[in-house]
């Protein structure tokens, strides 16, 4: 059973030295209890306290970092079964697979797509993180790994069950701290030694959950803790069940041998790229730490990346978009001007409807701390005496000749106040539902 913040506090030095990065030992203890800090951040804690705290201080699913510097990607570190219970922490890393049996064209194409298929959404950059390099031939494998490190900024997963092949690849990229995958019951010691000598994370490739637990236990006994689990399942049903069982065993039963992030291979469950994307979409929601795809396609990678962003959004912190003037469809100086809040969803829906209306327009997005129209209005963050100054400062007056401002129907109560705040402007109350914006705009005249 995990310790409470107060129980942890009793075991800390209580000097409030601040060396851990937070001002007091109590605050640090609370962070430990919430799984938001690692005990190693405290340089002064005693050995016996360390032992007692080991259990409480680590999240039930260990967080593992693959790669270094900008390419470092953290997986695992999860603390809940359902995102509404708190939040999901580290999105599953997406990897593209290249192998030493592929033609140069196939490899180059994948590396090219890895580089190109990136997207911007609500100011966030959406991109895949890893290149997984698979091989059986030491010479070819080393050459391929060399090529990948030269031509890609991604973190690396080395895939082979032959320790000599892994060693050859590792020589090319050891400084990048790749994931070494996979340690099986037959090669465990050799791969473990490689991981230890090069301080790399290690992936176990088991044939079932029991074997996975045995392998991780041996590794932790050998002093290796940065582990990723592949329970070996290659049917959708079994792989899904294993994901759920691993998460549940680590969280509910505190079963340490399964308390590690997982790696999944949807491409080994189907030959159809669209089906592969569907399987990946299941693992995005249900608990994968890493998802290796056989190739990337814009039509499937984009939905996967957005789904991942959605599911891993902190339910307590709504996504917000940046305050400012958004021009939709090349608006001229007679185009309508609409104002709304900066809740990301509000922005997406309203801008989508304006675009769909084919009537070019200006959308003024006001910072309401990510609240939707009704919530922001009720909280006093989307009211006349704030909207007025925002519109004035927005420089929209330089862009349009008319002075007509459309406000959301749900903020109709602010129209009187706004007429006082913006005496030059006519305040028009728009529809309450975004879906009615196109009809409204089609009949709108400056």
């Amino acid at each position: 059973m995990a310790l409470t913040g107060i129980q942890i506090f009793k075991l800390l030095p209580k000097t409030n030295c601040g060396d851990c990065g937070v001002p007091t030992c109590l605050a640090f203890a609370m962070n430990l209890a919430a799984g938001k800090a690692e005990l190693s951040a405290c340089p002064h804690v005693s050995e016996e306290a360390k032992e007692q705290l080991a259990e409480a201080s680590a999240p039930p699913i260990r967080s593992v970092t693959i790669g270094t510097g900008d390419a470092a990607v953290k997986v695992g570190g999860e603390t809940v079964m359902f995102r509404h219970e708190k939040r999901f922490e580290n999105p599953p890393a997406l990897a593209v697979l290249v192998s030493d049996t592929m033609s140069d064209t196939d490899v180059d194409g994948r590396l090219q797509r890895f580089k190109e298929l990136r997207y911007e959404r609500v100011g966030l950059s959406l991109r895949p993180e890893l290149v997984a390099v698979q091989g059986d031939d030491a010479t070819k494998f080393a050459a391929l790994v060399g090529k990948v490190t030269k031509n890609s900024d991604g973190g690396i997963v080395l895939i082979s069950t032959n320790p000599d092949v892994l060693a050859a690849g590792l020589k090319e990229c050891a400084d990048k701290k790749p994931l070494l995958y996979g340690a099986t019951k037959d090669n465990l010691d050799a791969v473990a030694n490689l991981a230890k000598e090069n301080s790399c994370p290690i992936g176990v490739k088991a044939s079932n959950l029991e074997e996975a637990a045995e392998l991780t236990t041996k590794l932790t006994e050998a002093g290796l803790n940065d582990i990723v689990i592949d329970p070996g399942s290659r049917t959708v049903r079994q792989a899904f069940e294993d994901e759920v069982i691993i998460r549940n065993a680590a969280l509910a039963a505190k079963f340490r041998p399964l308390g590690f992030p997982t790696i999944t291979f949807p491409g080994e469950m189907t030959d159809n790229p669209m089906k592969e994307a569907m399987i990946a979409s299941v693992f995005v929601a249900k608990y994968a730490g890493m998802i290796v795809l056989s190739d990337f396609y814009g039509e499937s990678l984009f939905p996967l990346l957005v789904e991942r962003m959605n599911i891993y959004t902190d339910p307590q912190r709504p996504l917000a978009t940046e305050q400012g003037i958004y021009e939709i469809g090349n608006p001229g100086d007679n185009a309508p001007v609409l104002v709304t809040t900066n809740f990301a969803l509000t922005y997406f829906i309203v801008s989508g409807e304006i675009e769909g209306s084919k009537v070019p327009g200006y959308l003024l997005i006001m910072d309401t701390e990510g609240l939707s129209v009704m919530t922001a209005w009720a909280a006093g963050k989307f009211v006349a005496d704030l909207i007025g100054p925002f519109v004035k400062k927005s420089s929209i007056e330089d862009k349009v000749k008319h002075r007509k401002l459309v406000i959301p129907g749900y903020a109709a109560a602010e129209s009187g106040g706004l007429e006082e705040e913006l005496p030059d402007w006519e305040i028009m109350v728009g529809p309450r539902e975004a879906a009615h914006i196109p009809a409204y705009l089609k009949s709108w005249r400056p």
Partner: protein
Amino acid sequence: MAFEIPKTSYTGKIKEVVLGKGDKAVTVGGESVYPFYLFEGEMPRLPKIAMEVYDSEPEEWAEAALEPFAGVTNDPVAWAKKCIDEYGAEMICLQLASTDPNSLDRGADEAAEVVKEVADAIDVPLIVWGTANHDKDIQVLTKVAEVCQGKNLILGPVEEGDHKRIGASAIGYNHTVVASTPIDINLAKQLNILLGNLGVPDKQIIMDPTVSGIGYGVEYCYSVMERMRMAALTQQDEKLQLPIICNVAKEVWKSKEVHLPDNEANMGDAKKRGILLEAMSAMTLLLAGGDIIVMRHPEAIKLVKEMLADLTA
């Protein structure tokens, strides 16, 4: 290394609701575990897909969405039959887009006549979806209930503001209602209680938590649905032990991303992108507890059905 697989302790079960009539009637619900947690208990039947049909010619649909229905988009009866005969639809959802006061504003009598023609022409369950305008939905759906007496239609969306009138007609003419609430577990429960007080039996209610697709707030309905299932299955919340319907296709296919041409913004093939956005949105909702998903593109449906088969194989 032997270890004991921890199991969720379930105390409840989703009620079974029979939709439609006769040989092609469809039962939904009955599950007593989280979606696809078959190692923990029973999910006696697969979730169902209902195929969309519109009562008026669609405007501004993406090419990929129109293509499978070429030649029938101006004829709801032919459209519905095509879905059943050619694409194997087990259920039809007739979207009464023409009745929208902000659009064609077609009257109740005319709309109900179209519903009756479709209902008479098919033998699978028929979901009839209004426009969420209370006054209009009351006129249209009560009329539909009357002229289609005995067909056991599924009428929605029924919201707090119109539940009395539409609920009463569903009781009177023996139809099922879709209790629709805006992404909120407490409001969902409250509406089920209100419908119960009115006299609508549980076996005539399915729930619509209000859903959206990937990129447009899927995380909100995902979590609300997960919470509904948690309350229903592990906290004995009887008023939430009802099947969930997700009317998601129209949300996906109106998004900006499905309308972008091939390769625009690095988003690849336009047709496949639309299909995958629909299929992956549906998959996400199925993982959260959807029992009926309203879908559009036959290839998206095929992908989802394969996934359902694989997850329960």
